[in-house]
């Protein structure tokens, strides 16, 4: 599905990674590990096309990613460090927008997603009144809404409680079992069957 070949990246005159190669096939989950500043977020942003200060090649379903941008974006769900949830809007309004940006969903599936992610009863409260964990859950509700093949999740566990961690682990498992792929960065110990790991910054 996704192939990374001989990726090099420097930031602030410091080498983050050199000659990094890996593949991610449908049905696989890959955890990117590494200490603070080892380049986990940078790697994810490079793959998503948000950062182009690298050398190396990226392939999406066998073709250079640059030539298949549209198909790649149509099959990508990225939840970054900054989760793209507006604080003055309500969870429902936020999800309406992010879903219509992709494949339009009615309020029905959006409300269901909010129930599944544990935000029932908070649909109409402005997001600034939610707790940090609930705020993160609003962004994770998008995982229920899109038929994206590749999930790229940057530290999705940081503010979740134990129940939320289990919920997200189950979601990731279900996604890979149904043929999706997941690229995830976290310091958590994940209990996922068949999880592969990629550790950055060991060479230094």
């Amino acid at each position, binding site marked *: 599905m996704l192939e990374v070949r001989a990726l090099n990246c420097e930031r602030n005159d410091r080498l983050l990674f050199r000659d990094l190669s890996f593949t991610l096939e449908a049905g696989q989950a890959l955890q990117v590990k590494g200490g603070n500043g080892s380049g986990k977020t940078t790697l994810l942003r490079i793959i998503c096309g948000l950062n182009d200060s690298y050398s190396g090649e990226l392939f999406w379903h066998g073709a250079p990613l640059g030539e298949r941008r549209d198909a790649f974006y149509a099959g990508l769900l990225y939840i970054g460090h900054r989760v793209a949830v507006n604080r003055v809007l309500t969870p429902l309004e936020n999800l309406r*927008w992010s879903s219509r940006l992709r494949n339009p969903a009615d309020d029905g599936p959006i409300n269901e997603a909010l129930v599944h992610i544990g935000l029932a009863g908070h649909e109409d409260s*402005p997001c600034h009144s939610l707790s940090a964990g609930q705020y993160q859950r609003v962004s994770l509700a998008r995982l229920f809404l899109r038929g994206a093949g590749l999930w790229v999740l940057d530290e999705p566990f940081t503010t979740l409680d134990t129940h939320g961690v289990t919920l997200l682990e189950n979601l990731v498992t279900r996604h890979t079992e149904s043929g999706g792929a997941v690229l995830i960065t976290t310091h958590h110990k994940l209990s996922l069957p068949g999880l592969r790991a990629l550790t950055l910054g060991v060479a230094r």
Partner: protein
Amino acid sequence: MSGTNIGTAFLATLKRDLLISLKRRNDILNPFMFFIIVVSLFPIGVSPESAMLRQIAAGVIWIAVLLASMLSMDSLYRSDYEDGTLEQLLLSSVPLYLLVFAKNIAHWLVSGLPVILVSPLLAYMLALPSEGYMTLVASLLLGTPVVGMLGSIAVALTVGLGSRGLILAVITVPMSVPVLIFGTLAVQNALAGGSPLGYLALLGAMLALTISLAPLATAAALRISMN
């Protein structure tokens, strides 16, 4: 991606931005009040003589509009940058310049339109003869979107900077000067008994050019800023 999806994404982005503006009324009210205050200080500070005021009326209103739009621009894209919304816009399979255009329209509806609606009242206060009203409103209708979209490029270029201070004004003002010149000339020409259509046509040409090019430039600037 089919046409209907692009339309849905465009409308959803427009609606979202309008909704956010309605909920953060200060972002709309501050530039609007600033505009009214600046214009109403002129009769007090310069001269209450209507002969004097009618000569400077068009220029005063146009300058106040420029300053107010500079003020309203500051909040454009900032919260979207901070909460990660811009990243999602960049990662959408809908062309970025269309989404940028939707955001430009939303911004104009809440910042440009109110100012235009109140401008005849302020023109009356500045003793602008009634022949000038229509031309003033027409020139503002054509000119304010140009200023807004040019500002949008500057904001997109500077959105990643921590404190941008006057950079925004330094980039936007020189580009807006032609709009200011033709806007005031149109009104003065109408007052002198001539036809303002030539100047309005020039403003219209600028608007057509900005609509077709500025969203593309803003989209490119956003990609650079997010890198």
